[in-house]
């Protein structure tokens, strides 16, 4: 916990208002007679410039957590402040605007639209932001250049390899210059070599000052981040340094608890 405090104080000196602040978030699904607590009182603060990995096994609530951070879903109870603004009470259109302006998504399945070319895919968030076509093209190409795929701008997504497609989706996430990059299992569909490249690229983005939230089930990938939040049964069980022996132990203990219960 001391490490956690150190991390926070380091970040707080950079900026007093957290970029992301979850306050006692619950997400409850009603499945017949029983209530499933996907998130069970989660609170966290993420500051600008951090590289945070949210790690947990499937069903732990990490995806729900990412959906809420990504404004793709709303909490049942609790408050979510993004840059000090209460996002949890916003309507659909306002949330869409937040997603557009503040968030850049990188998905496991890349989620490129197959019918339009690479450049048009990267232009999408810019288009929804209402930029002029010229500006869209300029920024999209700059963003593709950053991931080294400017030459593939006119290709269709399926003409690219998995790693390249993931880089296009990174370019798309970067194009709108978001405050937070949310990466949901970005290496899940890639072989280990390309997976490493993508991770390396995320690290590089972080070193350039981007705030990155990485969601993964893989401890070794989580260990690449500078801060790890471990989620289990809808609760945060570890928040601190990516010292693999420490958070993995917690994880192990949690598993046993879960099995025992």
């Amino acid at each position: 916990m001391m490490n956690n405090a150190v991390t926070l104080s380091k970040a707080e000196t950079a900026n007093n208002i957290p970029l992301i602040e979850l306050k006692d978030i619950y997400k409850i699904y009603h499945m017949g007679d029983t209530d499933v607590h996907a998130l069970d009182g989660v609170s966290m603060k993420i500051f600008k410039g951090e590289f945070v990995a949210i790690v947990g096994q499937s069903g732990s609530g990490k995806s729900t957590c990412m959906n809420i951070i990504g404004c793709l879903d709303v909490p049942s109870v609790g408050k979510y402040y993004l840059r000090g603004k209460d996002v949890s009470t916003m309507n659909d259109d306002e949330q869409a605007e937040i997603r557009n302006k503040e968030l850049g998504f990188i998905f496991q399945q890349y989620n490129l639209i197959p019918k339009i070319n690479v450049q048009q895919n990267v232009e999408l968030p810019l288009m929804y932001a209402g930029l002029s076509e010229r500006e869209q093209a300029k920024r999209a190409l700059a963003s593709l250049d950053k991931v080294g795929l400017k030459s593939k701008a006119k290709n269709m997504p399926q003409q690219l390899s998995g790693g390249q497609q993931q880089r296009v989706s990174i370019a798309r996430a970067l194009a709108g210059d978001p405050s937070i990059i949310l990466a949901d299992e970005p290496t899940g569909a890639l072989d280990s070599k390309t997976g490493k490249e993508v991770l390396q690229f995320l690290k590089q983005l972080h070193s350039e000052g981007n705030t990155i939230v990485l969601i993964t089930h893989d401890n070794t990938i989580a260990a690449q981040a500078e801060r790890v939040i471990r989620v289990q049964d809808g609760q945060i069980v570890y928040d601190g340094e990516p010292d693999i022996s420490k958070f993995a132990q917690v994880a192990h203990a949690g598993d046993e608890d879960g099995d025992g219960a």
Partner: protein
Amino acid sequence: MTLKKSFQLALSNLMFDKMRSLLTMLGMIIGVGAVIILISLMSGMMGMMNDEFAKLGTDTVTVSVQDRGGSRSIDEDDIYKFAQDNPDMFRGVSPSVTIAGAFVKSGSNDITTNATGVSEEYINIKQLDVEQGRFLSYIDIEKKAKYCVIGTYIEREFFGQGRAMGQTLRINGKTFTVIGVLKEDDDSTSGSTDDVMYIPYTTAVTMSASKFISSYTLWTTSVDIVDTAIAKTKQFLENKIGDSDYYNVSSIKQIMDMANTMTGTMQTLLVCIAGISLLVSGIGIMNIMLVSVTERTREIGIRKSLGAKAKDIKTQFVIEAGTVSGVGGLIGIAVGSVLAVTFGRLLELNAVPSVGAILISFGISVGIGVIFGYLPAKNAANLNPIDALRHE
């Protein structure tokens, strides 16, 4: 999302699966094509009918009167005076005295035909063309001259082409000199518009039993005032004769208007039937758009995750439906126009689709797409982003 981008996207989606797009559009193509063909053919038919009526003189008013005797009687002087008193309405008058079943003889040939007694203005009223010689003149009328102007059927029957001028023929025993031959109007056969003989009405009256002129043709200044002219004439006759049983005022225009109303009603009916196929095509488009929304749920989720608002998604799908339908409409217009012109040629009609018909069909096809695309678009817009993203 700009309209231009939505439109481009809609077009590229249209091209993505050409077979499906074509099948989706087929209903629209047939519907719009049918509407265009029907409207064109009907208006071609109306045009032909109007031309035929125009030959009969749509800007004339025909007055029929019966002899009531005494001061209630009416003669050509009354009619001439009435026409001259209303120069803004009438520009010419011709009494019309028909000698029906006139026995016409020249040399050893003889035929039975109708001879009509008319005034010198008749040539203008009926817009006759004189090929050789001249038409009857005022002097001929005044002098009750025994002159006649004949159609090409009479000319060829008795004298041969171009040899009638100055020749004589006998009508019911009276000798007439041919002073003019009309231009061939039809095919120079018996009973056609070339089977005519015009003589001065004054002469015709002397040959008729009653000596009473029972028919007049009044030439109005314009087709548009025919109805007012009829009313005015009726009023005049009512004042003079005092009993509507003794006179009748009519016009080809009235008959033409009636015929046009009838064909118009028929056209509306046929277009309505074709319109049903447009409706059906709209339902087809709605169906395929609903399928498309389901198929593209993931795409919608991706777009939403990138910041597309409900309105953006709705617009995209509405424009897509409108585009499919509009392109179908354009193809329908092209196919319909070609077929209309082809059928028109076969039926010898001038069936060319009007700009109005084309614009309206295009508008309707786009409109149907937008209306029937709205429900699927709304479904797409209301998808929850996270469910849509998870959709396989």
